[in-house]
């Protein structure tokens, strides 16, 4: 039974190897979380949240403006990306069985795969050059582009999942298509759509590259949307590559807050989708 034994040994080996790959991948995960948690949490204090960055050597510096900046940027991005994404998704789901829709879908996939730094360059040419200034607006534009494909895809998927019978019942009652879509289909698909939006937000909250030459960063509190604005990832980056230990410490703290925000949003989105399956669409 030589050949059988040999094959069984190879079998056990390969299966063990596959298992090891999975475990091995957890090592960096644990390491990253471990360091962010341990190094970050010790530097978190009230100062961090409410103070502006201070020059090296001065104690009590914080990232208050960066956190506010990130929130502002997310808000601005959502302002334009959510309508485009959601209603674009509505178009694809409700009217989208033609070549035009196929082109839109393809383009959205293309957009999704573009490196975020290239999107930053685009925003630069469109906003920063004409305005002759870095600005929150240009940053929000770049982030919005990143959000749109995700929101569109999720909206389309969720709308398609609304049962046909529900729609037909509404139309049979004489409700116009527009009202049917808005009042019924969208409302039914809302949890899923919200999830898509939240996931898109979680993604852009951590984006740095497209902001490097659009939002650019700022050491002061936000003043105007047409001016450069601080953002948490930008601040982390600037501090991380600096030569100062105190700033490194703050970078870890910033990373802690950033990861906290990103994961909080992700968990909330999962929670919403969980709720959806507990309370089915039919009312």
């Amino acid at each position, binding site marked *: 039974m030589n*050949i059988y034994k040999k094959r069984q040994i190879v079998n056990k080996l390969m299966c063990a190897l596959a298992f090891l790959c999975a475990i091995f991948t957890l090592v960096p995960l644990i390491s990253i979380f471990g360091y962010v948690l341990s190094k970050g949490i010790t530097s978190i204090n009230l100062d961090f949240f409410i103070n502006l960055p201070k020059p090296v050597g001065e104690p009590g510096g914080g990232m208050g403006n960066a956190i506010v900046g990130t929130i502002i940027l997310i808000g601005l991005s959502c302002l334009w990306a959510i309508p485009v994404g959601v209603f674009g998704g509505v178009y694809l789901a409700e009217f989208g069985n033609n070549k035009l829709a196929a082109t839109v879908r393809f383009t959205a996939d293309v957009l999704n795969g573009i490196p975020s730094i290239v999107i930053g360059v685009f925003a630069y040419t469109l906003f920063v050059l004409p305005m002759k200034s870095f600005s929150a607006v240009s940053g929000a534009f770049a982030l919005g582009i990143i959000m749109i494909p995700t929101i569109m895809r999720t909206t389309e998927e969720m709308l398609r999942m609304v049962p046909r019978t529900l729609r037909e019942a509404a139309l049979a009652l004489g409700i116009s298509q527009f009202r049917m879509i808005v009042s019924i289909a969208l409302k039914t698909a809302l949890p899923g759509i919200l999830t898509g939006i939240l996931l898109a937000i979680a993604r852009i909250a951590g984006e740095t590259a497209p902001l490097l030459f659009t939002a650019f960063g700022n050491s002061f509190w936000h003043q105007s949307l047409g001016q450069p604005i601080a953002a948490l990832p930008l601040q982390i980056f600037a501090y991380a590559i600096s030569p100062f230990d105190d700033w490194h410490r703050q970078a870890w703290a910033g990373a802690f807050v950033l990861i906290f925000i990103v994961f909080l949003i992700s968990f909330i989105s999962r929670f919403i989708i969980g709720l959806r399956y507990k309370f089915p669409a039919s009312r």
Partner: protein
Amino acid sequence: MEERVRILDLNAYFGNIQALKNINIAVKEKMVTAIIGPSGCGKSTFIRCINRLHEVVPGAKVSGKVLLDGRDIYSSGIDSIEIRQKIGMVFQKPNPFPVLSIYDNVAAGLKLNGIKKKDYLDEIVEQALRMCALWDEVKDKLNASGVSLSGGQQQRLCIARALAVKPEVILFDEPCSALDPISTGKIEELLFQLRQKYTIIIVTHNMQQAARVSDYTAFFLMGELIEFGKTQDIFTKPEDTRTEAYITGRFG
């Protein structure tokens, strides 16, 4: 006639659901034994217990013995991969490997066993394909993909694949149900040839087929073996009323 496979007190479970209850059968050597019965009676589960394919399903359990030439295939000393080579299987829907050529499909089992010598492989592949009456049809396109053939040809390819590893018993799980009548006829002819060298167990939901091709027939109902005997007897003078009811088409 010797018996090749003897099944003793076989019970099979899917989790908590019992699919087979106390099956006892002796399968004669170089004969075709047909397993018939309505849907869900456990026929497929039964033959999957013979080549130890049933236990692959998560939660599946088997108790009892299946003796191949006197040795219990479920005993701890015996490796399931060895059993599956000795007891081959052909499935309901032809499943050749699409990425492999016709040649490589037939040779697949041999290559698993580390056989590499080209001459030897060539010989066995030709032998197997000839036995399935496929050689003349494919000898010029051995490198074509396994799925480039028609449905009936694909099924014969799968049979050749099973034959190449020189099994002793071959199990057929409704091999013709996905095929047209002409291909079915060819496969039934093939079965007739094969039983000269192999012990064959065939599951079929087609009673006429069972009557045509088999020497012995077993009738299953709701996981139990109701009746087993010579095909002639089962179909002309069944002993159990349930067998009679099934054969005369009163339920199915």
